């Protein structure tokens, strides 16, 4: 069930925004809000997922607390987004646990380590090169194919349910292009004029979060591309790992890993400095754990590469693959979903 008190509170705040309109230039939320003849709960959900939590509207707001109108749009939209992600997740209970509790994320990470150490001990191959000397390619596929595909299927079901709720129609090429352009430049964290957002420095603008997020996003995509390319090379060209540095998987994966490491590190650092009350405060722990999980994935990947040829490889391999496993399995139940919902919100035409 949609949380009515939340969408009512969002509607109350939207009504005040609609009469003021000073924030029109900050992001995509306001022009869409002002064009709506009437606010419905579904539209509030859509606008909540469009909001990137840049907080510009809060620090510029003449009605922010202690004013009696008590406007805190970033917080109410963050809560509403959170509600969307948990409500559309299957099973919902898992989403509630992992979104809220960083400790639960850490527990899954430890289970991931344990599973990989166990698998490497139990399925130790007779022979193999590189990493395959410790865990065969087939064993890796056996573990990671379902761990990758099943969560994504679950996420697809959730997104379909969300897309129906907000009344999203057919997606056109123009919608995809608009969404892609917005994501690639993180337009909604630009503050409207390139000055950035209000995150770690209160009322002062800064592009730090936008840049950190870009590093995370592009780093993640490069790492993902590295794995994809390696898979194609393995099955298509019969060129099996280990790959030398001057090969597509490494040329994508190494800089991607560095970017991801720096980006997530910076995001965690910024998050420590930002005002908690302008986000969904109850899920702060889960959000932080997710950022640190991504950091662990990238840092252990880089460490593993650095350790090539040393005795640390088997342990680092288990740790890295354990982290990747935890990340994959938790995808539908952590902050990772925000990217997918955000892309959906950006694709929806403003009709």
């Amino acid at each position, binding site marked *: 069930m949609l949380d009515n008190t939340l969408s009512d509170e969002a509607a109350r705040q939207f009504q005040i925004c609609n*009469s003021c309109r*000073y*924030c*029109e*230039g900050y992001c995509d939320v306001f022009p869409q809000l002002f064009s709506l003849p009437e606010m419905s709960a579904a539209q509030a959900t859509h606008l909540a997922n469009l909001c990137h939590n840049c907080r510009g509207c809060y*620090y*510029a707001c003449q009605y922010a607390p202690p*004013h009696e109108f008590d406007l805190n749009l970033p917080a109410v939209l963050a809560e509403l987004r959170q509600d969307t992600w948990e409500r559309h997740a299957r099973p919902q209970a898992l989403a509630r646990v992992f979104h809220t509790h960083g400790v639960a994320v850490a527990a899954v990470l430890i289970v991931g380590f344990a599973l990989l150490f166990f698998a490497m001990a139990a399925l130790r191959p007779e022979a193999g090169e590189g990493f395959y000397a410790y865990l065969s390619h087939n064993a890796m596929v056996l573990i990671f194919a379902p761990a990758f595909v099943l969560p994504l299927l679950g996420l697809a079901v959730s997104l379909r349910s969300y897309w129906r709720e907000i009344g999203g129609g057919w997606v056109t090429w123009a919608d995809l292009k608009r969404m892609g352009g917005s994501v690639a430049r993180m337009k909604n964290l630009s503050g409207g004029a390139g000055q950035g957002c209000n995150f770690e420095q209160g*009322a002062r603008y800064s592009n730090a979060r936008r840049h950190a997020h870009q590093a995370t996003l592009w780093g993640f995509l490069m790492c993902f591309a590295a794995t994809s390319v390696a898979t194609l090379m393995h099955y298509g060209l019969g060129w099996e790992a280990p790959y030398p540095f001057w090969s597509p998987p490494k040329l994508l994966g190494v800089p991607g890993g560095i970017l991801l490491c720096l980006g997530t590190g910076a995001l965690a650092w910024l998050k420590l400095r930002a005002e908690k009350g302008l986000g969904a405060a109850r899920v702060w722990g889960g959000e932080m754990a997710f950022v640190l999980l991504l950091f662990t994935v990238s840092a252990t990947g880089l460490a593993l590469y650095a350790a090539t040829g040393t005795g640390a490889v088997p342990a680092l391999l288990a740790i890295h693959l354990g982290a990747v496993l935890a990340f994959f399995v938790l995808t539908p139940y952590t902050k990772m979903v925000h990217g997918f919902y955000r892309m959906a919100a950006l694709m929806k035409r403003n009709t």
Partner: protein
Amino acid sequence: MSQYDVVVIGGGNAALCAAIEAAEAGADVIILESAPQHMRGGNSRHTRNFRCMHQGPLSVLTDTYDEAEYYDDLLRVTKGQTDPELARLAIRESETCLPWMERHGVIFQGSLSGTLSLDRTNAFFLGGGKALVNAYYACAEDLGVTIRYDSEVRHIDLSEGRFSAAVLTDGTRIEGRAVVLASGGFQADLDWLTRAWGPEAANFLIRGTPYNRGVVLRDVLDQGAVSVGDPTQCHCVAIDGRAPKFDGGIVTRLDCVPYALVVNRDAARFYDEGEDVWPKRYAIWGRLVAAQPDQIAYAITDQKAQGLFMPPVFAPVKADTIEGLAQLLGLPGDALRQTVAEYNSACRDGSFTPGVLDGLATDGLDPPKTNWARPLDTPPYYGYMLRPGVTFTYLGLKVTERAQVQGAHGLLPNVWAAGEIMAGSILGQGYLAGFGMTIGTVFGRIAGQEAAAHVG
């Protein structure tokens, strides 16, 4: 006890412009803001744009807006109640102020939706006036200006005709070699407002900050400073009657009057609702409502008018019959039905065009409705409560073109004033959108430069 070069009293736009200019000239500056940090910025936090002269496109401004046209616009609203030298100075300087503002962190945006008529004359602040105030505070902090919040000044020590110190309500003396008075008008002091205007003023709502109590203005006038502006008048507009007593700001405006029928407490009409488009009439409606019993009025529309005006922040009262609406609004039902019936029978056929004077007038009704007069006949009916909302007061300090304050025996040698506290010289009557920020910026900058030059 502390000693500064320049003491700036107030924490809004004019004060910040003065502090930044003085600090950039090398002066050691302190800002004394009476509000707490979260409510800093005086009425500037409620503003949204800056009226700016320009020869050709400038930043977000299109086309040209020259001195002659700007001055004409000012004369029209003030009915000539302006000091021509100061007014022309403010207008001319506005053009160089805009780039200065951008250099000091203010970001402009194109005119907001629903304000297209202002895209040539007024540059809008991205995020509004509070974002501008935030940018200036950040700039002042970076320049090393000391900022004291929750620091209401109760007395300016002008003994021997010179400023020596500002005294806070807790008795702290902040000593300085020059002072810039930029602490606004007195519109938030309801007792003063009531003494000046009459007992009706107790029912007025104050649209802006509750911190503009005129304490410094009163104190300096009591010490012989020369005043300008009508001491009994305030700029008063019709706003939503359910707005908070203070600080309701922009969202409390109610734009429905031209498309409504407006009655008083006794369900009687009292003025032509369709005399002109709302931007040209909202100011006189403040006085009109102030003159009604209990200083209250009710605008009534039917379904046809929905969507013709900006959405109000408070949902209107809604009923399927006029009697039902009267009951919900606490108006006499029979009287309202009769007023509506008389009005409806005076409406004639013709084409209705919102936004422009369409000449669709009532026939044989007193007072008439001269435009947009359509019968109220399509339920549901909507009721909006109106009250007078005070924006600012006109009484202020007389200053020179260099923003220096006129004392009883000539110019005070180290006292300057900027913003609402001296705006009455230029805006003797009426209001021109975005001009308050122009006066504050131009004279704030001048005051800061002069004060710094004096101590330098």
